[in-house]
């Protein structure tokens, strides 16, 4: 398929197949978070601009004093977006399992973004606890998308545990450092059969593009959009960057070499 004669991002997206995760199908390979926006109106506009169909949400106590309108369902319709509840903030397998069960009881779907943090300073995952929680939740029928380190062995074990997607970090959550280890990301993608979504660390559009050029199935981000000076503009940029990186991967890049090769003919020059 060459896509001759078509233009625009929708046409570009049509040159790619859908993203399938645990039986659900998405056109967009960008998954976005809903946290840390200055206000709900900007959040909704940014998420719409990103083109994302799957959005992450957190499970928290209702603020019974009603200091602000935190209920995400007042702002994002579950008919418009696929809600992916996370276990963010959990430091043990037990807590993550509790939060996952609460999320499922909300009644939208069986999916959970499993996240067990092991260290407050780096927010790096506790992979042992993540694996432990994944095994239990998989047995309960959850469709687990597991946030993990960029470690191949853990990624393989999470797949074996029954996760429907494995989500290695590009770099620490909220750091905006981009992909610090593209080789490990590529190796994880090469070896796994379930979708690989890079989750966390993307800072700007070029990071998203480079991430997708590694051949992964998608990218999940929050802070890069919410903490941009103009989240709506950045969301447009990310939408294009993800599509660009994906198509560049599918197109197959030219070999890079440290010598120049002329683009114009060497023959037919004047005397």
């Amino acid at each position, binding site marked *: 398929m060459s896509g001759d004669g078509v233009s625009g991002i929708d046409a570009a997206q049509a040159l790619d197949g859908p993203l399938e995760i645990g039986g659900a199908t998405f056109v967009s390979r960008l998954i976005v978070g809903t*946290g840390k926006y200055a206000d709900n109106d900007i959040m909704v506009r940014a998420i719409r601009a990103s083109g994302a169909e799957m959005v992450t*949400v*957190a*499970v*928290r106590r209702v603020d019974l004093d009603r200091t602000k309108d935190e*209920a995400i369902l007042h702002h994002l319709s579950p008919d418009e977006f696929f809600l992916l509840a996370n276990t963010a903030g959990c430091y043990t397998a037990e807590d993550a399992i509790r939060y996952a069960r*609460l*999320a499922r009881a909300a*009644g939208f779907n069986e999916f959970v973004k499993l996240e067990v943090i092991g260290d407050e300073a780096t927010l790096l995952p506790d992979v042992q606890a993540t694996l432990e929680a994944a095994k239990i939740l998989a047995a309960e029928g959850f469709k687990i998308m597991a946030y993990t380190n960029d470690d191949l062995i853990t990624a393989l074990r999470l797949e074996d545990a029954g996760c429907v997607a494995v989500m290695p970090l590009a770099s620490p959550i909220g750091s905006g450092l981009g992909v610090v280890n593209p080789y490990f990301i590529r190796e994880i993608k090469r070896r796994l059969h379930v979708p690989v979504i890079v989750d966390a660390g993307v800072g700007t559009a070029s990071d998203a593009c480079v991430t997708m050029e590694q051949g992964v199935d998608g990218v999940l981000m929050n802070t890069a959009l919410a903490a941009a000076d103009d989240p709506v503009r950045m969301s447009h940029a990310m939408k294009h960057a993800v599509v660009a990186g994906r198509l560049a991967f599918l197109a197959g890049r030219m070999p890079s070499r440290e010598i120049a090769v002329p683009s114009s003919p060497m023959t037919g020059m004047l005397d």
Partner: protein
Amino acid sequence: MSEQIQVRLNGKDRDIAGGHSVRTLLESLELHPGMVVVELNKEILERDRYNDVDVQGGDMIELVHFVGGG
């Protein structure tokens, strides 16, 4: 008027009127049952049981919902 009972609600001790079912408790808090998940004494309470289960003194109740997150 029924007597007051004390419950632990979202981490805080609260005095509420006795005789509440979970459903009427949510109504008194102006919470739509479809918008929250109830955990009663560390067990998730399915929505179809909100009418049948009464709130007892000493209950630990957690009312959670979805908020913004990444």
